[in-house]
């Protein structure tokens, strides 16, 4: 739902800018200036209660030594939670896993979706059917998807290994080995995400005006030049949007981990959100969990900010 809303807002960016530019220059009176804030008050209160207050509270809690099991024994420890976390090998592995998982999932998923979108952006019944098929994983819950893939990836009676062995290849270890568990999770998340990304890409492709292509065709532009000079630049706002959305959702992966691997074997597929859950809910280390949450917030914040800074210059808004 939230994703869909943001998708609709995208094309509006231009309009907002235009309005900002045409703001009346005469100084409005007090009432006019304050009225918007008045109207915003109810929404702001909800925002403060459900967004700003929890964020502030988690930052405050991250400086405390506190246990979920004994809330009265809370103690201010300054940065100790952070220093201990950063020095912890397990946490370092969790961070690396999260980054590898996020970038691999987003990279592979966007690449496949882009190619699929190029292929499926045609007007024939068949393409519509394929589109619907590719999109279908998006509407299945992550829990069902995880259960299904666990079954497929079973090393003994799983379909994947049966296929591999049928063509004479050795079976793969999938979720059962520290070297392959993270890769298997990436595969599942790519499979789940490709459909949605493809759909947005196709929408982006269809919004590129046909006359540009006609002009290119008249000039006998080769297909790869049309692709790199027209399609990709014109599609860059869509790519940018998908990149951010995918990155944020991938860095928050939880369901697949909780159901398929529980962070194992030997921590090899543990990621930040699951780690936070484990620390908080299983081990009652509230301070650690809070500090790890703040680190997650920082990582996502910094990555998003970086992309807005560097990518937004390259993104071509019409």
């Amino acid at each position, binding site marked *: 739902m939230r994703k869909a809303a943001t998708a609709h807002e995208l094309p509006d960016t231009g309009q907002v800018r235009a309005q900002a530019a045409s703001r009346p220059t005469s100084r409005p009176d007090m009432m006019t200036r*304050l009225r918007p804030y008045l109207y915003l008050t109810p929404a702001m209160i909800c925002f403060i209660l459900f967004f700003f207050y929890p964020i502030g509270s988690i930052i405050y809690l991250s400086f405390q030594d506190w246990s979920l099991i004994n809330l009265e024994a809370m103690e201010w420890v300054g940065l100790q939670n952070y220093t201990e976390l950063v020095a912890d090998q397990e946490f370092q592995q969790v961070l690396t896993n999260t980054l590898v998982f996020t970038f691999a999932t987003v990279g592979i998923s966007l690449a496949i979706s882009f190619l699929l979108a190029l292929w499926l952006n045609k007007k024939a019944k068949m393409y519509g059917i394929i589109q619907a098929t590719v999109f279908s994983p998006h509407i299945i819950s992550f829990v069902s998807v995880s259960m299904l893939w666990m079954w497929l990836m079973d090393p003994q009676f799983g379909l994947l290994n049966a296929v591999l062995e049928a063509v004479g290849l050795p079976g793969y270890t999938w979720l059962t080995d*520290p070297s392959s568990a993270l890769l298997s999770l990436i595969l599942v998340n790519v499979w789940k995400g490709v459909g949605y990304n493809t759909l947005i890409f196709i929408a982006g492709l269809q919004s590129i005006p046909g006359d540009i292509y006609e002009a290119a065709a008249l000039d006998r532009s080769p297909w790869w030049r049309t692709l790199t000079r027209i399609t990709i630049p014109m599609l860059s706002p869509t790519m940018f949007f998908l990149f951010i959305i995918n990155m944020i959702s991938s860095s928050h992966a939880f369901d697949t981990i909780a159901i398929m691997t529980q962070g*194992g074997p*030997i921590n090899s597929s543990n990621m930040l959100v699951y780690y936070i859950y484990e620390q908080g*809910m*299983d081990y009652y280390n509230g301070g650690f969990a809070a500090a790890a949450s703040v680190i997650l917030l920082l990582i996502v914040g910094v990555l998003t900010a970086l992309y807005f800074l560097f990518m937004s210059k390259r993104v071509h808004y019409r």
Partner: protein
Amino acid sequence: MKAMKKTGTILCALALGLSGVLAGCGSTGKEQAASTGNTTKPATETAASNGPVEIDFWYALGGVRGKTIEDMVKKFNESHKDIKVKAAYQGAYQDNHSKVLASVAAGNNPDVTMVEIASIAAFADAKVLEDLTPYSQGDEKKYIPGLMKNSYWKDKLYAVPFNRSTPLLYINRDMLKAAGLDPNGPKSWDELISYSQKLVKKEGDKVTRYGFSTPVDIWFYEALVFQSGGNILSEDGKELTLNNESGKAPLELWTKMVKEGLMKNPPGENYNAWDVAEQDFLNQKVGMIFTTTGSLTELKKNAKFDMGAAFLPANKNFGTPTGGANLVMLAKSSDAEKKAAWEFMKWMTDTEQTVPWSIASGYMPVTTAAVDSPEMKAFYEKDPNFKVAVDQLQYGYPRPMAPGYKELQDVIQKELQRAMLGQATIDEALQNATDKGSKLLKK
């Protein structure tokens, strides 16, 4: 001046709007408090006016077992006019634990709940639980002593046994007979190895049938440490005592058996590995497995062969931890609620209830009188496998009692896996576990 006036009205409007919104919030807040508070607070009020005392009981077993619990509660309410128990399912052990802790913080906690036995120390240490000594007054002697070892914290009684299990060795008797082995199974680690050697089948280099399989799980590791004469924690609970003979012996046995193709290390995390071991056993891909008594009913129903249960084989001696959950009372309840809560706990775990509970759920009966009762004896006669767990309790050890054991057991388990997968030697793995463990225990 005009502007000033306008600002005034705006501020007024703002204030009004704010108060409106806040009032809205306030009222919903109150409603919530009322609806959740309903569950505990009015209980004391009604108690004062001589109505029944209402208490809340949160449990953590679903399916058939959950339904049995609901039926038991209904029966209790019918036979106790002065107490009304409201039972609610709260998800598996860990979910229930988190919810109980959150409810304690919010001040609307249940009065009785189930706590997994290795977490009793954590809950008692944090003073979440009520000391039961004054309520029980020696009544706790009715329980099987082997089941009481995880009920005490700092010499005070905090829990009574409810749904309890032990690990067992499950045997495919047909397979053992066909291999010319004693169908009652191996009695010692050496026999476990020699039996497995005779059960293994190979096609070329590939093992098609294993002798033995067990999840590399902390629970079974604990059992093997006990069997080797050791313990997980030092007497004072401040140190991990694994980096020694008794800590190494289990890993040496398992790695040796895996290396020689006698034992299958079932893949999967936590209970996924348990499922794999049980499936392999049912599919006759493995002759013997370790799993819980809790699986007995299910395995018996699905096994297409003569299935037996036996004590876990001994190294220096027999030994087993117990598992499952205990009933506890919460410290924050009112006196009237506590009195009613004890009445309910006592009733739930009494011989008359624990016998049908054991038969319906597959868990062990918890009182000594229950084991000797005619119903239980008749049940055991029909299938002696069900009695093995109770008999094994004479070799029962408490699960380690330390407030941070939930985290510690995950630390140990990860190191065990590292050793099993050859990522670390046994010495390195146990040294790692000890280092991390002692840091945790000092917290």
